[in-house]
């Protein structure tokens, strides 16, 4: 072609934009929470206490990671709490029926992954169904099956080594924290460094354009929901290990807490926007906040009020930031 056009490929580094990120605000909030906690309890900042605290709240953190993908896809999955209960109950019942514990744990993961895959499959096959209706239905169904299997009772009596998942430590660091960091790195890489992650971001922005561009959109939806179920199974393992037994009513409301963490972490519920760092920080903010309020003998409902308020503030701050960015976007 005749007229020469040169298109730049170097990304401009913009320091203002670097500091103008939601994650820095989250870091600030996290520091604030830590400072408040240590003013309530002088033992909080003791390294041993500090490093052990996450073990009390990290179980649901595992679902936050795939839920981040779900929200970036501009969808929501509210069935995960029920998936935790169902997979935990099936693990407990099958162990008590004679299945060796390692196999029972594997079964837990398979059931949970299957639960998620069913959500994905329903969404692909029946495109006219909304993701809210699909996951609301499976939320009710999975919890219902858990009740049918176990009735309104507890099941436990697991081998001693199983408690290591939730309570074990390696060089003083909780095993669950190590697992969480490794899984978080894996999900972060999947989101930001792979073609799959790129497709997820694209579909959150404009799924139609992605389909026309040859992205295997059905496969992406299916995998994301399957991962969400699978990680609910991981949560079931750690939660059951920590409690020592399980009931059909465990993990009630986990889905909402998890979604709140993802949203607080700066992932847009409209899809297409989000980075792994935000939800990770949000997991620790909400976790430490709940822990600190426990230290101060505040009741659980107050924690919920605080979390809800944080969520609204986060959305508002986001909006202000977005508007100021729009003004500068003439670059």
């Amino acid at each position: 072609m005749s007229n020469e056009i040169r298109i730049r490929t170097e990304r401009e580094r913009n320091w203002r934009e670097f500091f103008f990120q939601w994650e820095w605000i989250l870091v600030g909030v996290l520091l604030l929470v830590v400072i408040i906690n240590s003013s309530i309890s002088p033992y909080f900042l003791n390294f041993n206490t500090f490093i052990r605290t996450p073990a009390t709240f990290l179980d649901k953190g595992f679902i936050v990671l795939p839920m981040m993908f779900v929200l970036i896809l501009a969808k929501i999955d509210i069935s995960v709490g029920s998936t935790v209960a169902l997979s935990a109950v099936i693990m407990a019942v099958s162990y008590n029926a004679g299945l060796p514990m390692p196999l029972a744990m594997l079964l837990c993961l398979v059931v949970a992954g299957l639960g998620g895959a069913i959500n994905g499959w329903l969404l692909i096959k029946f495109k006219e169904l909304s993701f809210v209706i699909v996951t609301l239905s499976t939320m009710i169904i999975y919890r219902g099956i858990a009740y049918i299997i176990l009735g309104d009772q507890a099941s436990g009596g697991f081998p001693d080594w199983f408690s290591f998942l939730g309570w074990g430590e390696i060089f003083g660091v909780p095993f669950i924290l190590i697992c969480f960091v490794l899984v978080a790195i894996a999900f972060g890489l999947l989101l930001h460094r792979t073609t799959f992650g790129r497709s997820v971001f694209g579909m959150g922005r404009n799924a139609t354009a992605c389909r026309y561009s040859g992205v295997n959109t059905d496969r992406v939806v299916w995998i994301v929901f399957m991962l969400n179920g699978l990680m609910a199974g991981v949560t079931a393992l750690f939660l059951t290990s920590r409690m020592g037994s399980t009931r059909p009513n465990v993990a009630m409301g986990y889905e909402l807490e998890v979604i709140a963490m993802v949203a607080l972490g700066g992932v847009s519920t409209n899809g297409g926007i989000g980075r792994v760092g935000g939800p990770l920080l949000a997991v620790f903010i909400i976790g430490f906040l709940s822990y600190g309020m426990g230290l101060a003998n505040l009741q659980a409902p107050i924690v919920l009020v605080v979390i809800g308020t944080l969520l609204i503030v986060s959305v508002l701050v986001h909006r202000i930031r977005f508007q100021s960015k729009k003004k500068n976007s003439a670059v």
Partner: protein
Amino acid sequence: MSEAPILELNGISKFFPGVRALEDVKFDLRPGEIHGLMGENGAGKSTFIKIITGVHSPDAGEIRIDGNAVTFRNPMEAQRLGVAAIYQHVTSYPDLTVAENIFMGHEKTTSVVRRINWREMHEEAQVFLDQLGANFTSRDRMGSLSVARQQIVEIAKALSTNARIIIMDEPTAALTQHESEELYRITEGLRESGVSVIFISHRMEDIWRLADRVTVFRDGHYIGTWGADEIDQERLIVAMVGREISQMYPKRSVTIGDELLSVEHLTRIGFFRDVSFNVRAGEIVALTGLVGAGRTEVCESIYGVYPADSGTVRLNGEEISPRSPMEALELGIGHLPEDRQLQGLILEWEIGRNITLPSLSHYSNNGWLDEAQETEVAARLAEKLTVKAPSVFTLASALSGGNQQKVVVAKLLSRSLKLIILDEPTKGVDVAAKAAICEIIGDLAEQGYGIILVSSEMPEVLGMSDRIVVMKEGHVTAHLVTSETSQEEILNAAMVVKTPATATPEGGAE
């Protein structure tokens, strides 16, 4: 007839980002006149109506009603001055009665407490209906009426606002022959009672039957106004399609190769039926017809978006049936969708990411994305297509329509393809970008791609293509060789000239 015009527009221009919708357009409407307005898709008729009805305000020019210059800040102000529009798709409240629909927004109320005066409303609605010769009552539910009767309600609604200027936007498009006759009679009745009507239609029949005068727009420009008895069909068509083909579309001589694609008896129920044609390597086959003729749907079936119900598609002699765009791309079929903003691009994304979206797997090592390579490829493709953007990180939404379209073409070139389907590639782009895109299309043919060019614009079809397939209402009505045909022949195959809406003979309730 030299009465003072009731409505007069002069020097009207309207620009949208990247598009010049209307430029220095004029129009005048006399009292008690039916004035036909014609033009191809995209000629600016819809924008023009929106300006008269106060939906858009013009960027330049003046509107005069009864000789007084007016400006409409909103549709209500236009309505107050007696302008009403009846749209192609009736916009009514199906669960309310006819009377409620007629008086929606200006209900009859009692003076003090503003309670709705139902009796008066029904009585007055019935007067309008009787005046229009309607054979239903003001108490009928809107949703129970046929489209033709709903249109009568819309006209009654216009009369109830004391409209003196009524605009009808393709009112006969969804009517049967009999219903159209009824509408003609009503429209003539309006003329007799002194109302002026702007009648927009694609149908020659409507114009010959009704219009006193006819005005033609093309590419946002005013072309001319004629008395209906001063112009014949042939000249009217020429006025609509223009004559500037040779400069815009320099056709290159390309050696045409073997048959690449053959489509036989392709059918998708409810959209198109028994469509057959073929494309050879290096050949540009134009698929034309009116909007809604099924061209886009045929292309989407070949591309696997909505698989066909029956018929065969062969690529290089091998039968194929892609079930998704992904499979089509793997077979070597690329597609530039009709709606660039919705289907073609992720507007909030950088152009680089947009360009590489169809070929992500090329920059992956076992799934890991090689962003450096990706960026490099995107930049080369953007340069090749002369996308006017400073960097590959520029957002697609920041580009003009023409440059956005070049980005969509770059997406196609990131894959190795044999056949490229272009659905209205120059829609909504300005003249310069149009010429650039046409040059790119010529280049692609030269490189040996087979090209299906869907276009409604006659000059483009005639200037770019080797052969032309004309579709009408889901059927192929003509296979033409471009060098041996004329606009008139194409339009005669594409347009419904004799009988309105033969597709829906029993659409109404009559």
